């Protein structure tokens, strides 16, 4: 996901887009998804990492990743 590589983020969950100047905050789960997508843009692998790290069912992790990436696109388009 090209957008996640563009964004800068800090441990506090503050996210900034240097291209649009928009900023937002994310919680620790959102931060984990962003960091994973920044390393590896494959959404399926992000779901697997989230499922493992947060000990949730696969469908829950998948729903969270899809919802979160959709929200990100709206916020930072």
């Amino acid at each position, binding site marked *: 996901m090209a957008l996640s590589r563009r964004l*800068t983020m800090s441990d506090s969950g503050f996210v*900034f887009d*240097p*291209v*649009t*100047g*928009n*900023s937002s905050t994310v919680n620790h789960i959102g931060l984990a998804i962003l960091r994973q997508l920044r390393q590896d843009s494959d959404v399926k692998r992000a779901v697997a990492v989230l499922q493992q790290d947060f000990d949730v069912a696969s469908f829950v992790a998948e729903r969270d990743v899809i919802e979160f990436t959709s929200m990100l696109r709206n916020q930072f*388009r």
Partner: protein
Amino acid sequence: MTAGATVTVAVTGMNALPDNPGPGVAVARCLREAYGDRVRIVGLSYDALDPGLYLHEYCDAAHLLSYPRNGAAAMLARLTEIHATEQIDVLIPCLDSELPAMVDLAPTLLEMGIRTFLPDAEQLERRAKDRLPELSEIAGVLCPQIRRLTSPGFFETCEQDGWDYPMVVKGVFYDAKVVHNPDEAATAFHMISSQWGLPVIAQRYIAGEECNLTAVGDGKGNLLGEVMMKKRAITAKGKAWVGTAIHDDVLAATARQLVAAINWKGPLEVEVMRDVKGEYHLIEINPRFPAWVYLSHGVGRNLPALLLELALGHEAPELSPPQPGVMFIRYAQETIVPLAAFEALMIDGKRTQSYEG
């Protein structure tokens, strides 16, 4: 600037009004930050109540000018008087409305010993609001369609010609109103034409986010020191109150194309709308620094200082890389003015004595 040398720089546009400030104070502040006491700043303005004239930390002296509507001859006569007192080395005009006269006067000013770094009359004309689509086509940049209007009748029938509301109604020098119906459009037309004259310009509305870029054109087709800003909060007049430095290579490339197309010389502000697809549409090119130019100092790219070096015939200094995320927040404060300072500007049109506010 040579170490130890002092340069006298005259800066116009000291009308630092809280909701719609002129750029002069920000330019003076940038110069003071860059050079300290090695620059002597002469503030120039048109009204004895313009706040910048009394900010002694930025203006070592202050003078009133003849309004641009009085013509270039009156402007020259007044600048000649001021030059006799102040021995100006460089003049930085900061207002759109005075640029045509200043550009005409630039060769005469140079003979008097006053340097400028300005476009020529043709370059100035080619970035005018009513010629933007023409320039954009040459530069390969998107730009909304415009119409030059001399009467408000257009707004009654425009929808039949495919001009849907909302649209933007603009003055040739200043002011822009987004209008949503013929009544609002006619009101905006009359208000803007009474203040700024004809023609009034109708521009198609682009939905998106406004981004601005300021830089200096070197007159050889190169764009120097671009600083980009996204407004985060605005005043009732739509001026930036909070802004964030951004950086987008696409926007920088857009500005480079525009500057190269006219070999722009001098400061400029490029105003664009970024649409939902992330494409930039050119809205305006202002032939001067914007009021938010102090941000350029904040991101290590002090553009007024860069301009001063170029005006003095020096090489452009090295600039820091862009620093997206740096913000400015504008605020209003009072300055204390002795009656004698106000009296001097009212009676003599000048304040040459320094004072502590």
